């Protein structure tokens, strides 16, 4: 990740240490993870100890220190989804993609991420990929969903 890109992000937040978390979110979005050297660079730029950013990077769910897949397959584990069978959907997808919870497929395309309530409980259980939401997913229909995603049409 070029430092020029990081500088752009830092300037957007006026290099204010109070927006450290927002800065890291933009970097995560840009680069799908938080590389160690970038964290060090940001720490120096904000005159913060790198240990604090490392703690932020390993604390919040938005961040990951290892690269995530091109598409993050978010399975909502909210209560409504849970009650309507989200755990079975998560297991089914994990079986389809042959990837453990939080893991990334070998081809780097998909990361399976159980996430907090996405707030559209009406169509529980919900799976979200990028901006697209797929509602009322049944464990049985996971195979077709994964095939559709793999072919790239939402």
């Amino acid at each position: 990740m070029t430092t020029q890109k990081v500088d752009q992000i830092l300037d957007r937040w006026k290099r204010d240490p109070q927006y450290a978390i927002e800065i890291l979110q933009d970097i995560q979005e840009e680069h799908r993870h938080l590389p160690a050297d970038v964290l060090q660079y940001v720490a120096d730029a904000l005159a913060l100890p790198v240990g604090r950013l490392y703690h932020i990077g390993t604390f919040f769910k938005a961040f990951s220190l290892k690269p995530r897949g091109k598409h993050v397959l978010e399975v909502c584990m909210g209560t409504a989804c849970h009650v309507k069978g989200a755990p079975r959907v998560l297991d089914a997808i994990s079986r389809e993609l042959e990837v453990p919870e939080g893991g990334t497929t070998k081809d780097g395309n998909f990361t399976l991420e159980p996430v907090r309530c996405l707030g559209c409980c009406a169509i529980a259980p919900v799976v979200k990929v990028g901006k697209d939401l797929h509602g009322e997913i049944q464990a049985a229909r996971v195979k077709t969903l994964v095939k559709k995603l793999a072919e790239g049409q939402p």
Partner: protein
Amino acid sequence: MSARAQRPPKERRATSARAARISARTLDAVGRKHQELLAGYKGLLLVCTGTGCVSAGGFVIRDSLKAMLKKRRLDKKWLVVQTGCNGFCAMGPILVVQPEGIFYEKLNEKSLEKVAEEHLVGGKPVKASMHKDLATGNPIAKMAEIPFFAKQQLIALRNKGIVDPENIESAIAMGGYAALKKALTTMKPADVLGEVMRSGIRGRGGAGFPTGAKWESCIKASATGATGESNAQAVRPSPTKPVLVCNADEGDPGAFMDRSIIETDPHAVLEGMCLGAYAIGASEGFIYIRKEYPLALERLEKAMAQARERGLLGKRILGSDFAFDIKIHRGAGAFVCGESTALMASMEGRVGEPRAKYVHNVESGYMGRPTVLNNVETWANVPVIVEKGGAWFGSIGTGDVAKSPWNGSSGTKVFSRVGNIANTGLVEVPMGIRLKEIIFDIGGGIPGGREFKAVQTGGPSGGCLPKSMLDLPVDFDTLAKAGSMMGSGGMIVMDDRTCMVDVAKYFIDFLKDESCGKCTPCREGLIAVSEILGAITRGQATEALLGELEGLCDTMAVSSLCQLGATAPNPVLSTLKYFRDEYLAHIRERKCPAGVCKSLIRYEITPNCNGCHVCARNCPTNCISGDKKKLHVIDANACIKCGICRDVCKFDAVRVG
């Protein structure tokens, strides 16, 4: 909204580059102008574009409806208005035709075409797309008559389904910022505080702390700050200048009230905060919003930009010398950041780790400054309280709050009811309404003819209430007495296919992952309780462990540093209290009555099976065998209990025992 048949005036785009700033004098005129604009149409087509409906196709319906109108050259007669969440999420995508108030549900391209043709052109409402009464099945034309809406009383959600959240004039037309004008022109800060205190409103975030009392102690703390200078003249925010925070972190799973309020009527929140700032003497405010709410964030930013442009936020609000501006902080995925001090820590660029609240936020909060933190719904109520007066608000709900806010729960509460409930969605009902009315009268009861078993209120910090509690009037104190909590308003309805031990374990595991890990009781307590509940669900526990479980819960409840740990035991204690028999079934008979806990259940095919072989085809481990048209058999050892066979079987031939 009066619909006068008139030739529609040419739709004037807002003045070119920058729309005019609004002053106290011109506010009403702007509202009237927009109303005249709307009145110029034969009617309005209100399309719900809340996240729920959007995920069901709301935007597609909006755009194709506009196309249909243009094709039929009706776009001058009917105005399509995109609104925030209408509340009846289960029925999305939703269209409400005004002024007649006709409610259409579950629209798709085909049914929309029919509505456009028969109703908009032909003038005859389409019965097929109307809402069907659950009991009789007859269509109900008018939205107001649908039970889901009938018993509601809207204050925080007053503009839901009416206002276009991305157009400030639409909000002003519905009375937006009128309360702010009233306050700035006719009331002193103390008057605004007085109204809020008289209203007896208690925090909608969950703990239910009286908002007026919180504001008052913050004003006192700022005045006696180190510099002692009264904060009115402070030009540069001095260290004791108070700060306002809106908590839109809404981490409770199954709760989306705050999201809907922001997506539906962002200006209600902004106006509420301006009023709070005026009362408390703050010039800086923050909104801390979850990263999982992109649409709400987008609409909030648009609303704030428009408010600043029109002089309703930032400097010289409504032309007065009152200045107040708001910045947004984005949450990064941490339930603990719903706790005030953890929220403020992450606003300061640090990890969301709570601190001891022996010195309250109103004295020293964000960056050590006196800080008032309130929930989205609380802020959204403030304009109505100022507009209609605290006494009016106090008259709604339970108890007599005139003497003290602790005597009852005034006003209304927004609940998001999800799970095994027919009418999933958002409702706003007066405090004191019975649980039964929310779930059955408004909620439409349990789908699929199944049996009500329990309802969970207050999110992970709340408890599960059984059937016997259905007559409970719902307010802060009654729920607390019953072992649950009002919480933010999430209500998860569960039917008989839900295992209460599994639900308790679900909440404990949720909190185990979300605990910040700083203090022993919460970090180690949650790990230990999760371990014990796990053993119970695997049928490997002894009754003695139940005693151990209660001891752990007590330590967590009393010794945890923050409310996350302190309230974590509620789901366990309430399920133990009301569903102890289910725990004992798991322990003594190694059985899961609801058929959920995998290691205690077996999947069997019953005689209903007609051999259609669908289950065998979908079984991921191919452990179902049987010839065409013959009774199929599941190999119990190979079966991983994924439940797919039961899902796909159309003849209910798979039994879980």
